[in-house]
């Protein structure tokens, strides 16, 4: 088991931040159609479109965002999502990034990351009046946070994110639009769980590259 890369305990440079957000944006944009198709099955068919719009805005402002220290960059990217994504995912992912920005120090270590993720997930829960087990993005974010806190390596974190997303398939939704479907929400992957998995994978890749 390898640790999170050591230089995470020093401040990320503009290049690193650009790599990080660039990777997140690229994977969301590349998977937009898949995310929309998942949302057509149990939602309203816009999750990919929404996320793509938001991350295109992040991409357009990437130089300005990356010029900031990591906490400010996270807040700026989060605000970009809030103002561009709309729907449920805009405020939620926006809150996630903005809270990470508020909680992370400029040169975070593993413990800082675990704590900041925990705070960000709590903020998402408060904003969404939701809990894990309701077939939402939280069902990926929470196990990933736990894995980080336990000190799992990047490969394990990736695997846990993938498993967690897959585990939303048999769930019955009690939050989000899929909850309107009741029993009929069973048997489909939650679109937000899938986008969270994609973001976690992108972050793992980027961090792996820094190492």
């Amino acid at each position: 088991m390898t640790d999170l890369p050591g230089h995470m305990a020093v401040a990320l440079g503009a290049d690193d931040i650009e790599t990080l957000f660039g990777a997140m944006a690229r994977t969301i944009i590349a998977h937009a159609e898949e995310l929309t198709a998942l949302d057509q099955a149990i939602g309203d068919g816009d999750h990919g479109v929404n996320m793509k719009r938001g991350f295109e805005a992040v991409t357009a402002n990437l130089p300005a965002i990356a010029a900031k220290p990591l906490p400010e960059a996270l807040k700026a990217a989060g605000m970009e999502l809030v103002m561009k994504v709309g729907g449920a995912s805009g405020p939620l992912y926006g809150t996630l990034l903005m809270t990470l920005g508020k909680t992370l120090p400029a040169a975070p270590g593993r413990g800082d990351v675990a704590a900041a993720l925990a705070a960000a997930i709590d903020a998402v829960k408060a904003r969404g009046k939701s809990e894990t087990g309701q077939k939402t993005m939280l069902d990926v974010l929470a196990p990933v946070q736990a894995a980080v806190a336990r000190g799992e390596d990047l490969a394990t974190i990736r695997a846990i994110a993938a498993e967690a997303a897959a585990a939303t398939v048999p769930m019955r939704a009690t939050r989000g639009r899929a909850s309107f479907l009741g029993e009929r929400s069973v048997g489909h992957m939650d679109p937000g769980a899938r986008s969270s998995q994609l973001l976690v994978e992108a972050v793992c890749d980027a961090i792996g590259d820094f190492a």
Partner: protein
Amino acid sequence: MKKLINGVETVLRESLDGFCAAHSDIVVLGEDHKFVRRRALKPGKVALVSGGGSGHEPLHVGFVGHGMLDAACPGQVFTSPTPDQMLAAAEAVDQGAGVLYVVKNYEGDVMNFEMAAEMASGTVATVVTNDDVAVEASSFSTGRRGVAGTLVVEKVVGAAAEAGADLASCQALGERVNARTRSMGIALTSCTVPAAGTPTFSLAEDEMEMGVGIHGEPGRRRVKLMPAREIADEMVAAILGDFGADASGEALLLVNGFGGTPTMELYLMYDNARKLIERRGIRITRSLVGNYVTSLEMAGCSLTVTLLDEEIARHWDAPVHTAALRWGM
């Protein structure tokens, strides 16, 4: 996808440009297409602001004008607008008596309006509409969706605000109208979100969705296509059953088309529903039939019943001058 558009990126903008040009006597377009507001604001009046995903036209922009909304924020198709839109709209129409947000109960809408309210400098109150009986309410779920009944809330509270009611009274009235309003919808076909390019769901030639919302989302049950009378019967039973013992006296009946159903069929549904409701001892004294809260080109309709009292009926009858609802002036 067969649509009269120039490209999925510009649908919303071009449509809003057209709307504001066609109704320039009533409305003004906000900068960056963030909102549509009344041309003539009324000093000292509580400002009513609504909004939501686009694709439900005329809701909400078609209800901006005298006696109804002061501003509406159009989100992307079926996607809640963002807090900056609501902030800009509120700022543009706030006349010092506070702003009332009318929000349909979807987590996206609720969260975005909540964030806007948190960021706002002025006084803000909110009414959340949740009239859709197709979705079972439960403390473990998101609760009921806000659908066509939202029109009734906007009309009635709009009239009260026009008549000088203060923010707290407008909010209380909105909650009361919402509590006396129930809706239920069905779909015969799906719709296609322009940016998605393919229908949200698909139905066989002999199938329909019972209990759909207004986003082309699948309903509660997929059933065989039934005669209009039986469809109306199931909808009316769900609505009146949910009212329970409260359902008596006079009511408003709104038969709302989702966008792809001919007017002829909407009036036929009205005929069937009205008879079923009146048989239950409720008198329909106010009616509205047409495409008001749509789901792009979806075929189908919803029924909305509002139990009237003197105050609600009076505000319903009060003059209104918007693009989509107009009477008395």
